[in-house]
């Protein structure tokens, strides 16, 4: 069976005001407080296009390698629902603002971070359209409460061709799109706040045969659930077909608690949206350096080349730069970019420490990141700042403390009591033992105690030496330099 997965992604544009009106865009606000007369579809109101939304769509189109349509059109898509006061949505059906792009993303093979493949998914188009209001269903009182704060907010719909074959690929593609949008600033793309909504189109077929009937899966609230929902639906379709059943071309909702998809079949039958051109908006014309009109007000002109020149480094470029500049592994660069602020943290530590980047990365990805994850903290809320970590790593690099002592200091720093690494080292007496004699005495004591191990080493089993080194470390409470200890032990044996 060959599964086929396509995605329709709605990204809320990050702007101050809405797509066609001057009311504010904000996540949590008192109901119906961010609504203009146009948003409420009161008679006599007209749409006025927000320039920032156009720029956001052009930026996104360029970042996704699309052709930008210098002339695009707006249309009305009609359907009745309480959160769509006008009875239609203004969208771009005939000629959207951007078409024919691509998105490259990476996957780990076999769940091992060390082997990554790059895949590409084609972007069919990007279109500008209005968001609808929000419906709160009150089943007990058999009514729906409608809040129009979201009605009219600008959306970019990104349509991905069915080039993906499973939940993992779809999740990776969406994650990369999310990072791109956040880097561009065209959308904050936080799924939990509804700024990024993903619908999946899923079908299965046998190789060589035509594509199967597809279903649309909605109500997916996180990247993790996206993979689950798609994989469940693929399984469901395979089982249905193998049992001799058929797949209906329908919409299904993902239930995250049950981990399954449920039919949302509409009793009213197939929708006819009666698309028509939006009569109140002439075509949207975009310019480039060559076609720039001479006598037009700058504020009225969107110049594609001007926007292209100002695009920031995309995640893939940033990762490549990190790998080249610091000699870290590609999979490290992925982790750095995956956590908000982690790459900047890493670079700041590098700036303030003598330790080589290849060693620093271990501390950032292992110690810092695991502590952050354990306490569910974002990088910006870390009790250990990049400056503190750099200080600590300097002590380690200058061989004033051992690596295990450094870990103890880190744990102490995490408490956020305002002490510096040096203060903690002094407080807990974690400095490396400099007294050669004392060290030799401790080593001798260990040798004297561990008769069996000494015999094994003398017989040729060098690995047991590590156990002795460990015991010396324990005896010195982590204050001994393992390299030195090894030398002393080897000399004595």
């Amino acid at each position, binding site marked *: 069976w060959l599964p086929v997965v396509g995605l329709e992604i709605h990204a809320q544009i990050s*702007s*101050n*005001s809405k797509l066609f*009106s*001057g*009311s*504010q865009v904000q996540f949590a606000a*008192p*109901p*119906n*407080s*961010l*609504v*203009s*007369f*146009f948003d*409420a579809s*009161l008679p006599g109101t007209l749409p*006025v*296009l*927000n*320039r*920032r*939304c*156009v720029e956001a769509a052009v930026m996104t189109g360029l970042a996704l390698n699309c052709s930008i349509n210098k002339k695009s*059109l707006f249309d009305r898509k*009609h359907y*009745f*629902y*309480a959160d769509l006061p006008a009875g239609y949505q203004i969208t771009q059906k005939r000629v959207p603002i951007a078409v024919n792009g691509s998105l490259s993303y990476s996957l780990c093979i076999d769940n091992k971070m060390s082997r990554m493949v790059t895949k590409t998914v084609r972007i069919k188009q990007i279109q500008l359209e209005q968001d609808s209001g929000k*419906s*709160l*269903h*009150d*089943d007990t009182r*058999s*009514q*729906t*409460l*409608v*809040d*129009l704060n979201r009605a009219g907010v600008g959306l970019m719909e990104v349509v991905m061709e069915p080039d993906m074959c499973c939940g993992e690929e779809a999740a990776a593609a969406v994650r990369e799109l999310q990072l791109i949008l956040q880097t561009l600033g065209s959308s904050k793309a936080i799924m939990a706040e509804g700024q990024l909504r993903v619908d999946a189109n899923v079908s299965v077929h046998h190789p060589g045969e035509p594509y199967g009937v597809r279903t649309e899966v909605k109500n997916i609230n996180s990247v993790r659930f996206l993979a689950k929902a798609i994989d469940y639906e693929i399984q469901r379709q395979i089982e249905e077909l193998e049992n001799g059943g058929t797949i209906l071309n329908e919409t299904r909702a993902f239930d995250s608690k049950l981990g399954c998809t449920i039919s949302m079949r509409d*009793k*009213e039958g197939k929708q*006819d949206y*009666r698309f028509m*051109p939006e*009569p109140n*908006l*002439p*075509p*949207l*014309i975009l310019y480039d350096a060559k076609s720039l009109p001479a006598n*037009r007000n700058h*504020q*009225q002109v*969107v110049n594609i080349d001007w926007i292209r020149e100002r695009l920031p480094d995309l995640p893939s470029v940033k990762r490549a730069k990190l790998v080249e500049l610091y000699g870290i592994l590609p999979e490290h660069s992925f982790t750095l970019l995956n956590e908000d602020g982690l790459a900047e943290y890493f670079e700041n530590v590098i700036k303030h420490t003598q330790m080589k980047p290849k060693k620093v990365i271990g501390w950032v990805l292992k110690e810092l990141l695991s502590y952050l994850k354990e306490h569910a903290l974002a990088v910006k809320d870390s009790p250990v700042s990049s400056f503190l970590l750099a200080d600590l790593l300097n002590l380690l690099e200058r061989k004033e403390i051992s690596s295990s002592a450094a870990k103890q200091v880190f744990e102490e720093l995490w408490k956020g009591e305002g002490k510096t690494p040096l203060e903690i080292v002094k407080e807990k007496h974690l400095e490396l033992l400099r007294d050669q004699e004392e060290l030799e005495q401790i080593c001798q004591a260990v040798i004297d105690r561990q008769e069996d191990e000494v015999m094994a080493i003398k017989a040729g089993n060098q690995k047991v030496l590590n156990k002795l080194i460990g015991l010396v470390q324990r005896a010195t409470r982590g204050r001994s330099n393992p390299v030195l200890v090894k030398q002393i032990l080897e000399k004595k044996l």
Partner: protein
Amino acid sequence: EQVPAAVLEHLERLALVDFRDAEGVQRLREAVRFAERLHEVDTEGVEPMDSVLEDRCLYLREDDVTEGNCTKELLKNAREKIEEYFVAPPGNIPLPKLEERETFEQQS
């Protein structure tokens, strides 16, 4: 020509317009006949227009917050409201099927 009952029902459902009686259906027939006259014009090779204003410039607005904050005024139009939310039925109430409704077509 007669407008088939299935088409009438479909139109009523899409547009929520009730062609309540013979006069309504007649008016529909005349509207269709009027529009069909467009076929008499040879439009070979001519790009269709969306509106006579389509060569105007599409005005672009600055991204400033200039409206909103008029909850009370908006809710004045609401028949029912709860704590500043508009109240609507739980979902779309489907139109009953043509056979179940009392219309001219059923009676004829």
